[in-house]
């Protein structure tokens, strides 16, 4: 299986879209598919005509029952052409018995009436699996697509019937009126040639529809596999890898030829510059006065004086308030009002019909209850289950933005150390210590999940977000959300502090603008209030 030769676009499709794709694919090569279905079936039908000429309906039933046998060749052809391999109809016909070897009895006995026949057939024919392996495979495939496959079969069955009737009706429409036909014996089943003809037509309709049915089921199967095995991703990744390798080869090659290439490029650039001198299109105009004249000239020209007549129907404005109720409606209502009521005695059917309706109504109620239970089964089950165990605690990061944020790396008295460093002139280390101490406490005490993918401002925003959330839900401690770890709420002063500190740190770290000493002292004071109390 070479995915690069796939003849259809690999993308995620809904089951219905997969069926549509099957229709399009079958339409493309309908003739060979039609022939490989029709020829074996027609042979069998012809043999029946010779052997049991007195029972045309039995013959048709036999052909109809053996549909899975005839379906295999179109499927074989379609599967080959999907991967860009063309097999002629004749070569496919030679394979008739080879393709029917696996599980043939199952398909014409207990699986014959399976509503997902076209969808399951590829598992037998292409994956060559049977028994328990097949059952497991079918289980996986059916999980999402079984309903569409069933509807496909039902639709196909009905279309077959309707198209046969339509075909017969079409022939009937073309019989001239003058031709007198005695229809009674024809429909009475006395004339065998008529039944053989209608059955032959049915065979034709079956053969005409079979490619669409088989290929749609096959595409449904392919769609499910694209989804399960991510063919679309694989194809794209292969393309990306090939492109990457080509580019690398190209780079290596061009590296050795760089001087020559540079000369060529220069030449080309010169050529382009020489050849592509801008062309002056409009007559150059010198003064605004001249420009105004030109504009007037253009405006007076033919282009701006074209008349077009448009005719169409439009609504008139009609005063509807004049007649609110038409006379006839009033008359009708009056007539209904004054109509003599028939008050004859209760008929014997009354109670029976009443009982029937009552039973029906109760059935509807029961059905509704069952449906609601089924619809919300997951919510009900979830509400019955105990709360899940707490998720394993995530590994806290050790460094953020190149700063060590482990608690163990912090000094015992952070603020004193910060102020000492600050006064010693080591401003960067001082404020940096305060910042990483804050991050460290936010991670440890407030369970924030900071990671390398966040910027400093994003960390501050996360803190602010949590503060807003805890404002919205007033008692987060009393009712922790189910399934989610109860996280400590953030107070407004803490959020404000983190915001200010982040701004100061960014100014110092990236712009090299140190804040004033008083500001650092205020920040230290705020830090103590926020974190130091608990320790």
């Amino acid at each position, binding site marked *: 299986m070479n995915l690069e030769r796939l003849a259809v676009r690999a993308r995620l499709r809904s089951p*219905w879209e997969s069926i549509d794709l099957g229709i399009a694919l079958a339409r493309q090569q309908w003739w060979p598919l039609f022939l490989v279905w029709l020829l074996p079936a027609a042979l069998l039908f012809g043999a029946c005509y010779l052997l049991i000429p007195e029972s045309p309906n039995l013959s048709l039933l036999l052909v109809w029952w053996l549909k899975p046998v005839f379906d295999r060749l179109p499927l074989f052809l379609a599967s080959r052409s999907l991967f860009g391999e063309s097999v002629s109809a004749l070569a496919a016909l030679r394979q008739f018995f080879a393709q029917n070897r696996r599980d043939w009895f199952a398909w014409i006995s207990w699986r014959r009436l399976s509503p997902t026949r076209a969808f399951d057939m590829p598992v037998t024919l292409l994956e060559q699996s049977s028994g328990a392996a097949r059952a497991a495979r079918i289980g996986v495939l059916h999980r999402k697509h079984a309903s569409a496959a069933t509807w496909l079969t039902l639709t196909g069955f009905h*279309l077959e019937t309707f198209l046969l009737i339509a075909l017969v009706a079409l022939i009937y429409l073309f019989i001239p009126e003058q031709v007198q036909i005695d229809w009674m014996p024809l429909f009475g089943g006395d004339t065998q040639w008529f039944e053989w003809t209608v059955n032959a037509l049915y065979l034709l309709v079956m053969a005409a529809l079979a490619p669409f049915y088989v290929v749609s089921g096959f595409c449904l199967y392919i769609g499910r596999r694209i989804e399960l095995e991510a063919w679309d991703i694989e194809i794209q990744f292969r393309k990306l890898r090939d492109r990457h390798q080509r580019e690398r080869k190209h780079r290596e090659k061009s590296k050795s030829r760089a001087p020559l290439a540079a000369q060529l490029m220069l030449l080309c650039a010169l050529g382009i510059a020489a050849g592509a001198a801008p062309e002056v299109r409009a007559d150059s105009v010198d003064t605004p006065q001249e420009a105004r004249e030109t504009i007037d000239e253009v405006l007076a020209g033919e282009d701006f004086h074209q008349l077009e007549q448009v005719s169409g129907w439009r609504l008139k404005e009609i005063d509807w308030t004049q007649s609110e109720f038409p006379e006839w409606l009033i008359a009708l209502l009056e*007539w209904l009002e004054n109509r003599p009521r028939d008050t004859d005695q209760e008929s014997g059917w009354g109670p029976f019909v009443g009982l029937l309706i009552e039973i029906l109504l109760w059935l509807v109620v029961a059905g509704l209850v069952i449906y609601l239970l089924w619809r919300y089964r997951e919510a009900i089950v979830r509400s019955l289950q105990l709360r899940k165990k707490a998720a394993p605690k995530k590994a806290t990061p050790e460094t953020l933005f190149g700063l060590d944020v482990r608690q163990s790396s912090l000094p015992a008295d952070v603020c004193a150390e910060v102020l000492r460093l600050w006064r010693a002139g080591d401003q960067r280390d001082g404020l940096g210590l305060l910042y990483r101490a804050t991050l460290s406490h936010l991670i440890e005490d407030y369970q924030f999940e900071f990671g390398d993918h966040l910027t400093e401002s994003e960390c501050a925003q996360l803190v602010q977000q949590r503060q807003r959330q805890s404002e919205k839900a007033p008692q987060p401690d009393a009712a922790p959300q189910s399934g989610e770890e109860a996280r400590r709420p953030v107070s407004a002063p803490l959020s404000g502090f983190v915001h200010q500190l982040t701004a100061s740190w960014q100014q110092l770290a990236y712009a090299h603008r140190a804040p004033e000493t008083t500001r650092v002292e205020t920040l230290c004071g705020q830090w103590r209030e926020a974190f130091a109390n608990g320790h």
Partner: protein
Amino acid sequence: MLDTTYNVETPEGIDLRAQAAGPVPRVLAYAVDVFYRTLILAALGIALAFADRAGMGIWLLCSFLLEWFYPVFFEVMRGGQTPGKKAFGLMVVNDNLTPVSWGASLLRNLLRFADFLPFAYATGVISMTLSRHFQRLGDFAAGTMVVYRQAEKTATSLPEIAPLAPPRGLQLQDQQALISLAERHEALSEARQRELANLLEPITGKKDGAALDYLRSVGNWLLGK
């Protein structure tokens, strides 16, 4: 590359794209509509039974209106979707993918009688099956088509992994594939995902679990997680 996608380019140079809907879902959607119409007519019939001949007349009028204007009403007023089409996520649009107009909707529904011939919409079904964008005769006449309404993307769970910036030189389709890999991390088997990740070994320089984790991180990044 065979696909059922229908493309239109607007005068502004914007590519619009929709998936044309084929005969099977459309037949089923029609069956649902017929079911609803039958229900309404049955209910009307019971309700109008008291007014015998007048009721019969009203009922016939209603059945006429339902037959011809039920689809028109829903197609124009309800975003191209009759209840049956809504059940299958289909909608009627003009063939430039604008919402269907009154004239087009009336025409395509009045021409159902042509599609009906000789019996049970045989012509319509055959025309739908054989035409490139699954149009029946009424669709051709009115310049309309039936497409899938794009379902709103439900939020999928992303892998729990910190985002990482993608390598340079990824094209749009490559990025979409990476996003798809991240979004489908629960649907695809782990072994298959590793196999996919190993395909990109020349670019990522990683193998198996590490490669998969890296690609998932990039997917998360592209999704702005």
